């Protein structure tokens, strides 16, 4: 695998990732379509994903959770707005609450997948679009109570143990 480019735009809040794989477009498409494959790569390292639903069709939705190294489940959902296999897919990705259903009042991030054949394999573009920083923080876990409490605990410890000596003047 080669990552051709990775572009972040802080004003538009987008992330574009282009990667090339030594496999056919059909096989690259399959890692999205087959939930047993999807759950092997969706979670970050150490956070395995489990898909309890994966209706990979236009208007279809998916439900999943990622399990933290401490065993806590973090729930999410996908909605497939456009599917044109094995070339293009547009989807929404949002946070879910403990029953797996979309968290009320939290807008999903947008995603576009583009897959095309190259001379040596397949190029895949994934674009992610966020609405605002608050949404990004929620997606990274800030909105979750456990995460928040954990973070505050860390900050608390930090402030108690390591009071900086002399604050540098800005």
């Amino acid at each position, binding site marked *: *695998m080669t990552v051709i480019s990775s572009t972040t735009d802080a004003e538009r809040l987008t992330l574009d990732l282009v*990667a090339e794989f030594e496999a056919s477009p059909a096989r690259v498409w399959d890692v999205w379509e087959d939930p047993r494959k999807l759950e092997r790569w969706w979670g970050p390292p150490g956070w395995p994903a489990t898909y309890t639903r994966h209706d990979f069709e236009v208007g279809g939705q998916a439900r999943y959770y990622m399990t933290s190294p401490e065993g806590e489940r973090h729930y999410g959902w996908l909605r497939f707005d456009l599917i044109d296999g094995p070339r293009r897919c547009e989807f929404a990705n949002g946070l879910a609450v403990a029953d797996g259903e979309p968290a009320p009042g939290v807008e999903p991030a947008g995603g576009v997948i583009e897959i095309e054949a190259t001379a040596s394999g397949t190029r895949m573009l994934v674009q992610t679009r966020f609405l605002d*920083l608050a949404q990004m923080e929620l997606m990274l*876990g800030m909105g979750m109570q456990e995460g928040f409490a954990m973070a505050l605990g860390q900050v608390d410890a930090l402030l108690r143990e390591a009071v900086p000596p002399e604050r540098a003047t800005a």
Partner: protein
Amino acid sequence: MLIYNQMVVDLFSSDAFSEVDADRVFHALADSTRRDILARAILREQSVSALARHYEISLTAVQKHVSVLERAALVTKNRSGREQLVIANPEMLRRANTLLKAFEQLWLDRARQIAEILAEEGEPR
């Protein structure tokens, strides 16, 4: 997730917060409505009345929440005519890049994991 915790530590250990009583920050963030107000003020400067439209509580109650956030130095208030505009501490705005970098790392990891699955299948193209 883990990255997120580091970011929060970075934020709170930054100069912008070092003069503020930590208890005020913790108190301010302990309330879900205030966290939501803060999240909205990160996005853009907006009036107290615009913020209040998102909640089923009185304008006065929202003003009180904003004051708690202001005393914790999480937001600043600027007067514009008859309106009071609320915006998050500028320190917050620098986080856009940090957050995008966190998602970039997530997708780099995902691409690598996809490549591993494809290599494992190992069937001829």
